[in-house]
């Protein structure tokens, strides 16, 4: 989850207090490594091993199915719609919460966490209750020939709901820590709201924002529960990659299931790599622009 703060830069420092005997250190490190291998590395390798079990030809053939291609297209489309929208919502929410005082601020802060607190299945169900045929708006939508549930809009809505907190959660502490003095300074210098946002606020939050977007994207492409409820599993139409994996698996088509799963796994690996890159980049910039004060002497 996105609970961690990405831009917290610390350097490892070995203090006297942590000088344990060598065997204790080896034992702890060994334990951690064994645990990691068993629960992370082995499953990761298993995905690729099973996907490639019948050779590369079968592996690539699995993607050449119309259903698989459709699932890939749909997943990309959903992410392409949900991520930019959540980028906007996330910035707006974080901006409002971090820079302004207003009634109901605490309620809004709590609401932002709601998608994390609630089971994704419920998130999906809510939309079925709202827009489904038996739902509140269902009859009206049917009259006007608008399809939300079991169609692209429903999937996008459910994805937006589930991934909403990623960007906002990443930005709120960052923006709060930065305060609003720089914005006020820009205002007093005659900058318009537009200028202030692009030249002062955005550059200050860009790494946190990128980090949030990467996580948001990973979740948007990988979301299963909420999407499963609203998609209706129409093959070649409303199946995203995770749903496609499930269908193939249920049909005992293991190789194809793991082949598609390997795509999602690759996405996860790319996400981690990007995340690392962002952290590395922002650290470089932090060192340059945020070097700690070296005394108040005037030269």
């Amino acid at each position, binding site marked *: 989850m996105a609970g961690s703060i990405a831009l917290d830069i610390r350097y490892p420092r070995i203090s006297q207090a942590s000088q344990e005997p060598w065997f204790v250190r080896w034992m702890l490190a060994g334990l951690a490594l064994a645990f990691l291998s068993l629960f992370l590395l082995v499953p990761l390798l298993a995905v690729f091993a099973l996907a490639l079990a019948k050779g590369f030809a079968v592996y690539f053939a699995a993607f050449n199915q119309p259903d698989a291609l459709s699932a890939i297209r749909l997943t990309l489309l959903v992410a392409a719609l949900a991520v930019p929208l959540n980028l906007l919502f996330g910035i707006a929410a974080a901006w409002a919460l971090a820079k302004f005082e207003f009634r109901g601020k605490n309620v809004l802060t709590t609401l932002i966490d709601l998608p994390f607190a609630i089971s994704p299945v419920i998130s999906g169900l809510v939309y079925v209750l709202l827009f489904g045929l038996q739902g509140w708006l269902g009859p009206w939508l049917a009259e006007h020939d608008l399809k939300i549930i079991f169609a692209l809009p429903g999937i996008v809505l459910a994805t937006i709901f589930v991934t909403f907190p990623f960007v906002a959660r990443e930005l709120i502490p960052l923006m709060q820590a930065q305060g609003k003095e720089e914005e006020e300074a820009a*205002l007093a210098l*005659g*900058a318009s709201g537009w200028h202030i946002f692009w*030249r002062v606020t955005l550059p200050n939050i860009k790494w946190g924002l990128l980090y949030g977007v990467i996580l948001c994207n990973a979740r948007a492409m990988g979301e299963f529960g909420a999407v499963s409820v609203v998609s209706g599993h129409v093959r070649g139409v409303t199946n995203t990659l995770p749903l496609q994996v499930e269908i193939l698996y249920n049909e005992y088509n293991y190789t194809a299931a793991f082949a598609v799963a390997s795509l999602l796994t690759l996405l996860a690996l790319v996400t981690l790599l990007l995340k690392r890159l962002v952290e590395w980049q922002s650290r470089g910039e932090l060192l340059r622009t945020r*070097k700690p004060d070296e005394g108040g002497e*005037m030269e």
Partner: protein
Amino acid sequence: MSIEVRGVKKTFDSFVALDDVSLEIPSGELVALLGPSGCGKTTLLRIIAGLEVANSGDIFFHGEDATRRGPRERRVGFVFQHYALFRHMTVFENVAFGLRVKPRGERLSEEGIRKKVHEQLKLVQLDWLADRYPAQLSGGQRQRIALARALAVEPKVMLLDEPFGSLDTKVRKELRRWLRKLHDEIHVTSVFVTHDQEEALEVADRVVVMNHGKIIQTGTPEEVYDHPATEFVYQFLGSVNLFHGRVHEGVAQIGGLAVGTPEYRDISDVPAVAYARPHEIEVERIASDSTQIKAVLRKVLSTGPVVRLELQRKDNGELIEVELTRERYGELKLQHGETLFVRPRKLKVYLNQAS
């Protein structure tokens, strides 16, 4: 440009930050808003800048009503307590910011901006730091860059919030003198907020003393120091010694001492308090008359240009702080624990209204 504040009120929830404040600042003056923390001085400064909106009251710039103008239209330079430099921009870009965001018609050419920025940086004597980032500067340097940035857009008014608040003592003093010199050169109407009376008295043309959201006294540093309007001002402007007594028909009886107080001619027998600054108290080793107070020498601080003594009164146990010149201290040859005779040379008497 002159500034006028008329009947400004500001509350935060139930807290009254400014209670009907009116103030006139003539063009070209350097004015200090002085008061303890929470007295409303920063709020007043922010209201003048337009960063905060008053609940009621008006602000006039050069006789024109500016109450409803936003900070952009007021064209004030604001220097924040923690400088608020744009951390992701170089010093050059920081100073150039105000020039770059001007509407296209008023904006200088790139060459013009470059020239102007270097002019400003030369003014604050930091031209050589143009390519650094704010985090790579010392506190004093940041403060001067913040000033250069505010001055670059040629504001009609400069507002500074605790400009020396987060600097160490030595840098503070240097920067203080430097700011005074700068103001004498460019003569832009300036207001700065401070809680440090020494700073206000040394730098400002006029000092505005505030407390609990109200202006208590306005005057030149000499006026407020020598003729404090209230007990609060007296106490706030330096260390004090407190004596109790009574006022009766123009004469204050403080211990054995009778002080003429013609301003209280019509008062009969009211409790009063009298104050004396540490340097206004005389110390003798031998009693010369009955008006002196007996006190035991408890502590001597002899570092610095003056020697500070702490004495404890024999009658009521209260402490008296005394400042002597080094010469006088040498003459007296005081012993620790010795009983001395003290007498205030000058007393400022206030009626004790509460009782």
